[in-house]
Each structure stands twice: as C-alpha cells, then as structure tokens.
C-alpha cells in the first residue's frame, strides 16, 4: 500500500488507519465528531499528501489546459487557483481538480489520489492524439507533501510560523513563501468550507512542517483530523466528491458544477456531448435532501416520488452539526424542479426527505 511521508506520525498519534484507494491513511484520531467540531470551531490539520500533483509547462500549456479542462483559464492570473475538471468525450468526469497558475506557461494540477495515475495517463493520451507540441507533463506527486490547515483560527496559527502577509492572500489565491523555514506553496483553499490553507512542501520536509504547526497550534485548539471528518465536513458544505457526485457516468452540469463548465469558452473535451445533452434537456439533476425522520441515508439508496424510483443518493451521512441525516441525490430533472414530496428508500422502508438549499450548513 502507498504511504505518505507522515505515515509514522499518524501511527505514533494512535490514528486508526484504513486503505483509502490504495493509500494507508488515517481515518480518525480522537473521533470523527470531535474532529469535525474542532475544524468548525478552532482548527484542524489534515495530511493530504496522497493527493496527486501534475505539472504542465511550456508555451502551449495554456492552450492545452484550456482544451482539456472544463473551466475557463483565461480568467485566471498568476498566483490564482481555479477549481475545474477533466472530462471524457462523453461528458463524464475523469477527475475534478484545483489548477494553480504560476506563470502563463507553468501550471500545477492538484488531483485526487486514487485518480492521479489515471489522470496522468489520460493527459498523455490526449497529448498524443492532439496537435499540441511545446509542452511537458510531469507527475510530481511523489515530490510534494501536502497539509491542509483548516478552521476559523487557521490564519492565526500559520502566522506564527511565517513572515508572509497572509491577509494579502485572498480566497483561492496562493504565494510561494516560507513556513517554519520550509519552502512552501501557501494556498488559501480547502475542502471544509472553513477559512484555511493548503500547504505544499518538499516531501522530506512534511514531517517537520506538521510538527511545527502542531506545536504552535495546540494552544489554539489545533487537532489532527482524519478522512472521516474530512468527508462529513465536505458533505455539510455539499462539495462534490469524485466517485459519488461526479463519476465517469455523470456530467459536471448534472452535478451543479455548471459554474466550472464554461461551454462558451470554445471547444474542450466533452463539450459537444454536454451541449447535446443540454439541448435535449438534462435528464438528471443533483439536489440536497434532509431526512425529516430518524435514519441515515447512504450512497446508492434509491429516491422515490409517489412510490416511483426517480433517482439515487450520491452521498449521505448523519450531519454532526444538524444532527440529521443529509444526502446529495441525483434525480430526474422534472422531479428535482417540482415540489413533489420525496422519500429515500432505506432498506424496505421509504423515509420522507425534504429539499434543502445548498449548503446544508451555511
């Protein structure tokens, strides 16, 4: 199994480890709920070094990326980050990612751990098939350790270790600076819905960065956070997770990701399929549901309307904040747009669920 540079630390901290898409990762330290609450109230530190990093550089890097991703690169300046996606010709999603622009001809793609090899192969494939010449793809996944520092007091903690003016880094922007004397990409991004940073540093410095952050963060309530809370946190904010809301079988425009799908920017992989689908009218749409009775909706459970199956749950959990079962579900557009009552099929019973505006936790 793959291990991140911080694997030993997790074990020393007594984390419970799981196989996460081939990576030996911490699922929890103290407990999912406690960790969840820490991130919402103070701060949490995540080891996300399993994420993949792919560098694209060269004079045609821009054109190539503009062609292979769904979002519009032209509205991106140096030092900015963009949430975007790679799609198949069918419009289905290869992966979702954050794209970092260093210069007009140097970019870094941060992709999902379990997809990084698939993504890299896919990009190489496209490169062969197309006319783009002057650019190089480099898989830098092994070179980086990545930590996510998230929560209301994240900035206060980070400030103790860097001279960089954090207030100058706005949301979805990044700078290259030093943290605890380590060269680090400081990115004001995250996957929790809280303020915070994602920090990229050389793999060999990962342990030191972690220890320094924990040292200065403890007094401010910083806790190590596992994948368990990472998932409940993102779901409360209704962030899509690959393999759930978006898959090879689901178009971003079906998954409320129209905002990263710029059909007007010109041709890109998957665009034709999406245009066609849009013309025909999208059959499915992602909606948010909250169970009005007890019970926990789970991925794959069917959604019913007047006894008829009209869709299924893509992600579901018990919200630690709301103390209710919450779910994202992909359902027939007509039903999604109507106000007809919906039920989620939990085993043989159908539990009433009401539509909720996103995100679940404001």
């Amino acid at each position, binding site marked *: 199994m793959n291990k991140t540079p911080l694997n030993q630390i997790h074990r020393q901290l007594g984390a419970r480890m799981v196989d996460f*898409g081939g990576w030996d990762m911490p699922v929890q330290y103290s407990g999912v709920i406690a960790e969840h609450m820490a991130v919402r109230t103070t701060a949490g530190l995540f080891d996300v070094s399993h994420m993949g990093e792919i560098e694209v550089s060269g004079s045609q890097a821009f054109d190539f990326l503009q062609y292979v991703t769904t979002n519009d690169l032209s509205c991106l300046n140096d030092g900015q980050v963009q949430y975007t996606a790679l799609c198949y010709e069918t419009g*289905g999603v290869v992966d979702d990612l954050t794209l970092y622009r260093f210069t007009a001809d140097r970019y870094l793609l941060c992709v999902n751990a379990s997809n990084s090899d698939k993504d890299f192969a896919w990009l190489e494939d496209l490169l062969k098939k197309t006319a783009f010449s002057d650019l190089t793809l480099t898989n830098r996944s092994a070179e980086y350790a990545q930590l996510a520092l998230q929560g209301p007091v994240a900035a206060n903690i980070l400030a103790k270790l860097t001279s960089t003016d954090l207030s100058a880094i706005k949301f979805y922007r990044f700078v290259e600076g030093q943290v605890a004397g380590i060269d680090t990409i400081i990115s004001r991004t995250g996957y929790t819905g809280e303020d915070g940073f994602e920090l990229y540093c050389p793999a060999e410095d990962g342990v030191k960065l972690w220890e320094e952050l924990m040292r200065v963060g403890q007094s401010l309530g910083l806790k190590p956070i596992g994948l368990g809370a990472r*998932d*409940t946190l993102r779901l409360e904010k209704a962030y899509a997770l690959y393999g759930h809301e978006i898959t090879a079988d689901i178009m971003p425009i079906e998954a409320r990701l129209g905002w990263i799908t710029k059909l007007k920017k010109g041709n890109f992989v998957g665009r034709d399929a999406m245009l066609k689908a849009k013309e025909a009218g999208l059959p499915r749409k992602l909606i948010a549901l909250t169970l009005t009775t007890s019970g926990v909706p789970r991925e794959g*459970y069917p959604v019913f309307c007047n006894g008829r199956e009209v869709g299924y749950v893509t992600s579901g959990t018990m919200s630690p904040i709301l103390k209710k079962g919450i779910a994202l579900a992909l359902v027939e557009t007509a039903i999604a747009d109507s106000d007809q009552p919906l039920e989620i099929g939990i*085993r043989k019973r159908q539990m009433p669920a009401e539509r909720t505006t996103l995100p679940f936790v404001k």
Partner: protein
Amino acid sequence: MRYLPHTDVDVQQMLDQIEVSNIEELFSGVPADCRLKRPLDLGAAKSESETLTFLRGLAEQNTKTSDWDSFLGGGAYNHFIPAVIDQLVSRSEFYTAYTPYQPEISQGTLQAVFEFQTLICQLTGMDVANASMYDGASACAEAVLLTIRAGKKRHKILLSQGLPPQYRETIATYSAHLNIDLIDIPLQAGVTDQVELQKLLSDQVAAVVIGYPNYFGQIENLGSIAELTHASGARLVAAVSEPLALALYKSPGELGADIVVGEGQSFGIPLSYGGPGIGFFAVRKEDMRVLPGRLVGETMDKDGKRGFVLTLATREQHIRREKATSNICSNQGMCVLMVAIYLALHGKQGLRQLAEVNYAKAAYAKEKIRQLDGFSVAFSGETFNEFVILCSEPVAALKQRLEQQGVLAGISLGRDYPDLKNGLLICVTEQNSQEQIDRLVAALAGGEA
C-alpha cells in the same frame, strides 16, 4: 406401474394378513369430509420414452452456455466439469443414501464429508468447516445469525454494498423478525468505503460482512477491514461467491476473517439455472459450538478402528428444537461430493493454475474493452474473473443487440445499483476462448460478432 411391484395376488394376501377386505378400509381413519372426491387432474402416466421426449422438448427451448458465448457470472459461474465427477456421483450407493444417521453403513458419505470439511478449511484458512449449507446466500444469512447469537447484546450488522444483492436480500429475509439492525456500508471506487465503515462501527455492531471478491469482482482489502472491525469488537464475515479466487489470493482466514462463508458451485457443480449449488461455512475454533449445520468428526469403533460420525448434534434442531443454532437439517450431500472430487482432481497445482487462467482471460477482456470508444472500465482496483464496464449505449439495448449475435454479454447492474444504470458486469472464465472474447469486443464495438 414399473415402480410399483405389487401383483394382485400380493395385494390380496397382504389384505388378508391385515384382516381387511380392501385397501379403502385402510383409510377409514380419514374422515369423509376430508376426502378428495375426484381423481387428480394430472393427466395419464407417460411412458419412459414419452416422458424423455417431452422433457427434451422443454430443455431444447433453453439457452445453453455450452452453445452461446456466455459472459454471465454474478454468483453462478460457467466452469468446466471433468467427466470423472458425474461418473462417480452417479454411483447410487452415494446418491440414494440418506443422511448418515447409521454411521456403520454410511462410512462412505461420512469420510467424504470429513474430507470436504478439511478441504474447505485449507482453502479458506479457517479451523472448522461444517458439512455444507443450501447455498452461499443462505450460508451468509446463517453467519449473520451466528454473530448475533455469539455477539451478546450487539444487534447491528454492517453489510457492504459490494455483497451480491441476492446475499443481502436473503440476509434481510432471515433477520426480519430477530431485532437485527442491518446497515449498508457504501462503496468507494467499487470497494467497501473504509472511511464510512469506520464511521459506522460501534460497540453495538456484531459483524461486518464483506464480499471477497465482491459482486463487481473487486478484491477487497480484507486485512485492513479486519483491523477496523476487530478494534470495535465485532466479527468479520467474508462471503465468497467465486471460491476459485481463493486459489490465487490470500485466504480470508490469513487476512483476519472470523467467519468465511460462500458458494461452492464453481467447483464441479452444473449451473442448473442456479440450483442446487452448495454453501460452505467455516469458523475459528472458538465458534465451533455455535456453528449451524451438520458436522462430521473422527472417532474409533469398538476395535479401535478409525471411523467417522455426525457429531456435536446437540446444537441441532432435532435435539435443541426451538433453541437450536439453526433449523437446517440437511446438507448438500451430492454437491459436497462434487466439490470434494473436483478439488481432489485439481489439487494444489491445478486449482492455482486454473485461477491464473481465469485471471489472465478476464484481464485480457478488460483491457480490450477499456480501449473501445463509448466504454470505460468502472473501477480501477484489482479484479479476479469479473469486472464492471460503463456503456454510453443503454445497457438493455446493448444486451439485446449482442443476443442477436449469440452473445450473453453480462449482467445489467441498474436494478440493484441505481448509480450504475450504465453498468454491465462481465465474467470471463477458462470456458471463454480468446476468439470468444474478441467476438464480444467486436460486438460491443458495434461490429459483427
């Protein structure tokens, strides 16, 4: 009638001995208002040749895996069956015998079952195996009941959504009225989501049930799941619907499973439209006395000669009645024999080699299909002889298109997995030649098969 030996003379002599004047009198205990006052409407008896002709007529209307290119799996597998098996199980000393209650004249059955129990233990990496259950699904349901019995006050069962749907449905039937709380563990990339699993585990969970390989042919990381499960004090049940995989991959026992159940049909039992198959059931020594089903044990006779008997019978319904570990009172005797003979023939080397052939053929098909436009392989993880593809063409139409060309392409997943409406489960075994696989790929691509 050729099965009824009585001559009129016999009948008369017997009636005289009984001291009644006719057979009717023998039924005097049956009140008139309970009598059927007309003949049974079943038509007249058919001669042997008429019967066979009629049944052949029905048989010929069916689609034989031996004539078509079949890529159907999903819990029933098309493997080759050596001629030896039917020849031996056709010995009527085996198949016309009853459950071996009289050990002195049942040593053949008893030794064969004892050997079967041993073979299953070796294959699964467990300590004790019973004399078999009805099938994999019911064995899995019985395993769930065992963990509830043995789990003291624990009443929750976590079922991976990667368990075959028919297993999950059977478990639901068996546990309907026993205050058991069944909870699904979602999948991530085609395997049990361990993050979700960790969130669901608690001191109320009696067992975690995982398919190995799972319904999508994926090899689950049992070792890591076992650690999580045991950390919460629950039992790990591994359900194996394609046991040939156990000849290649680490055994569930080695990976920490507490109970291993599964379906043995792959080992020399014909598909027969899905039954009879055979369920196997293996546990650790600690659970020996809460095991359901029959057990054969070794002992000695008066002269100190080795012999075999049914043992630990006090677990069973004919003694414990409503307190029994199960209501089961049969095993799959004939199928036990088929499986044991199959395993004896293939042995240490053959079974491994056969598993490798299945793996290589499936890998070949998977790669070919991956390269087709309009198709993608659904999940990236390790698979044995089955895998899921996603089709841009509606699956129902696709399947019918291929049926026109004599290809049974696979099983649509839409009904059991709403999020895999475009999913097709494809199985490739040693029975599928390269030509067959290439035909499948060509047909999928839209060309002639």
